[in-house]
């Protein structure tokens, strides 16, 4: 059982198999970036929370399967019981089959996403670590999860190229969403704006990263989406100076007058206001400034 695991997981597979054989309960934190935590119960994987792929909460909430308010209430209760899935099921917010599908998808996608960053190195074993609030009741054999993740990597490689490269791209729609053959593709075209990575699209749509990437390659094959790499000079957008108009170019530079920007004192209350107002109006305004009770009067 010490044979290397399927690419791109390699040595990690050996560790996961050993945990399965030892009927391990707890968690394994695989260092990234990003860090990924695999939660085990009796040697089976029950949850894989990672920033690299949407969790079951995103899959259920973003698709509207469970409402945000309902979720918040159930989660609050689950903080006491430790089992959000049971809370959602007991109150009929989601069916058992639908919840299990979302959890299964999340686990498989989390393992898939680990393979997108081959820089994953080392890890930390935490025996008896608390499981997340939302997890599978019956976990998945880690070897089965790795094989499925590797199959998805292989499929993407055959269809397009290295999945790790695809994950870094920011797809842009080349056609109107109405030309998409299905609702899922329509939603993808609608949001592929050249700024979002497949991971961003997965979080926005509440879908698995692996599913989004597979659909992106299908849309690219049909010429509905552009997967070409876009080169950015840096993380921040550089704002270029606007070109000046001919009139601006011809205008001479403003000459600075010495002392013109100095601090100016406020006029005294009894000072004659330098104004171009008519004489009678200026006199009335001057009178107003000298009205009894006016704070200015004491200064005079």
């Amino acid at each position, binding site marked *: 059982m010490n044979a290397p695991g399927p690419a791109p997981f390699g040595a990690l597979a050996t560790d996961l198999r050993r945990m399965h054989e030892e009927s391990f309960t707890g968690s394994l934190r695989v260092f990234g970036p990003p860090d990924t935590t695999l939660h085990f119960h009796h040697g089976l994987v029950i949850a894989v929370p990672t920033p690299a792929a949407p969790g079951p909460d995103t899959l259920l909430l973003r*698709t509207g399967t469970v409402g945000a308010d309902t979720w918040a209430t159930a989660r609050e209760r689950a903080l006491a019981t430790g089992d959000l899935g049971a809370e959602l099921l007991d109150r009929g917010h989601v069916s058992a089959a*639908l919840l299990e599908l979302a959890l299964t998808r999340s686990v498989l996608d989390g393992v898939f996403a680990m393979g997108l960053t081959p820089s994953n190195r080392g890890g930390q074993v935490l025996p008896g670590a608390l499981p997340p609030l939302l997890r599978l009741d019956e976990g998945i054999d880690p070897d089965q999860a790795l094989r499925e993740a590797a199959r*998805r990597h292989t499929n993407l490689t055959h269809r397009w190229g290295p999945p790790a490269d695809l994950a870094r791209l920011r797809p842009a729609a080349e056609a109107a969403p109405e030309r998409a053959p299905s609702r899922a593709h329509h939603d993808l075209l609608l949001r592929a704006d050249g700024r979002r990575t497949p991971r961003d699209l997965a979080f926005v749509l509440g879908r698995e990263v692996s599913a989004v990437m597979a659909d992106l390659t299908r849309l690219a094959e049909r010429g509905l989406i552009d997967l070409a790499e876009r080169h950015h000079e840096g993380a921040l957008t550089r704002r270029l100076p606007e070109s000046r108009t001919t009139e601006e170019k011809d205008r001479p530079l403003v000459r600075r007058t010495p002392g013109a920007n100095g601090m100016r004192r406020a006029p005294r209350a009894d000072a004659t206001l330098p104004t171009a107002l008519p004489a009678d109006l200026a006199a009335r305004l001057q009178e107003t400034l000298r009205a009894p009770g006016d704070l200015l009067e004491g200064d005079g």
Partner: protein
Amino acid sequence: MSKVGDAVRNILECSGSRAVMLVDRATGHAFVSMGEQGLLLPAESVGEVYQMAESVQLAGSGHEVVETESIMVTTAAYHHVIRPVPGGGSDGPLLSVVFDRGRTNLALARRELDARAETLLA
């Protein structure tokens, strides 16, 4: 048996059904498969066939997206039916069911399958 497995077993109990598989359309992952495995289409092919049908449907309907209800492939011995599972959202799973042609009235089998599929994720 998982909850999804329980739900899929209910589909296998359709009269004339020989094998059932629940497939993720986009990734081609088989969540569950039951019955005579050798009769089932490869899981990856189920998703591809469904998407090909959607594209053909789009081209043949003046580029208006109309939901594909089901796809049927009939051989001398079997009816293969592929259909989305209601309530799974825009990225819901697909059901692939193989019926024994000699023991099945296709119209009745489809009606029974539709009724059972309605409750699969409900």
